């Protein structure tokens, strides 16, 4: 057991920003828009750092794929307590089409290279809402997975994961190495304050290209069009039940 945990972090448009679709409908406006770490990724980093503070694991490595700017996101992870970072350089057209399949291939290659025991990811990104990267990574590595984790307990080489599922909570026990994806209630992420950011400047971020890992980042998907959701029609108020029945009949509902 290397005691090494890989945490994937994604740079996304800040959750509080009002999203605008580009006039040519090819995507959303990202230029000059505030970006930050995906909230579920923050929870993933926090969980890894907590495990290290409990001395259950030895090293937390933060990984992000993208252009130069993702280094900010890696720095935030380092400020939260990660030991070092890996920046997988993907830019331009490749970055625009980068999706869960490509990222999971990259993470799988890195997990093997770094001999990681555990990969913790956010359950999904708030920009594409795919909820696929964790599952795909586990499949590529043939590792067990504990997704939608709201509680994680590590005991030697066994992981007890309490999962949030539609019916309630499911508790599973999986053997390391494994992939875990973080759900909202897993923990309360610490804020990366200025003193922590300053201290983190000493920590190293390695640069790697997908080709170095033997990963082909070409996408099999093509985005045809991006649109805003349809405008909600205003509701209509009625006075009596008879009016309601009348309106429903008009609309062909009954």
């Amino acid at each position, binding site marked *: 057991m290397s005691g090494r945990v890989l945490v994937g972090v994604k740079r996304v448009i800040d959750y*509080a920003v009002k999203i605008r679709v580009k006039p040519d409908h090819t995507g959303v406006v990202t230029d000059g828009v505030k970006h930050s770490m995906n909230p579920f990724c923050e929870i993933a980093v926090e969980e890894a750092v907590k495990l290290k503070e409990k001395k259950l694991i030895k090293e937390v490595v933060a990984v992000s794929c993208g252009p130069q700017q993702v280094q900010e996101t890696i720095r935030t992870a380092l400020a939260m307590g990660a030991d070092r970072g890996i920046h997988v350089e993907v830019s331009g057209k490749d970055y625009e089409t980068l999706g869960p399949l490509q990222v999971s291939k990259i993470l799988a290659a890195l997990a093997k290279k770094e001999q990681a025991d555990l990969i913790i990811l956010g359950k999904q990104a708030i920009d594409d809402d795919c909820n696929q990267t964790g599952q795909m990574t586990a499949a590529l590595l043939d590792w067990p997975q504990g997704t939608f984790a709201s509680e994680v307990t590590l005991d030697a080489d066994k992981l007890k994961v309490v999962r949030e599922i539609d019916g309630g909570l499911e508790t599973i026990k999986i053997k390391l190495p494994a992939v875990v994806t973080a759900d909202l209630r897993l923990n309360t992420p610490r804020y990366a304050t200025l003193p922590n950011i300053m201290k983190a400047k000493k920590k190293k971020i390695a640069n790697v290209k997908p080709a170095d890992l033997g990963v082909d980042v070409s996408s099999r998907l093509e985005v045809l069009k991006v649109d805003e959701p349809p405008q909600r029609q205003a509701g209509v108020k009625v006075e009596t039940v008879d009016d309601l029945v009348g309106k429903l009949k008009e609309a062909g509902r009954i």
Partner: protein
Amino acid sequence: MSNPLRGDVIRLYKNLLYLGRDYPKGTAYFRERLKAAFMKNKDVTDPEKIKKLVDRGEFVIKELEALYFLRKYRAMKKRYYEPEH
């Protein structure tokens, strides 16, 4: 004439300014009020009083961190989870 606590005060100001970037009402709004609050006490020289003010500043930092977390948590909860959760 530089008070030895000057460094602490400046550090506090920088930390608060950094936190202000995520303030819901905007960075400019936050910065204005932060500057005004610090300027109001610029003539305080008693180290005891300065320490108390710095402590209050640290408390505000904790409050802001809590505010930011709650806002984000509630937004995520609203977007991704059924009402009865």
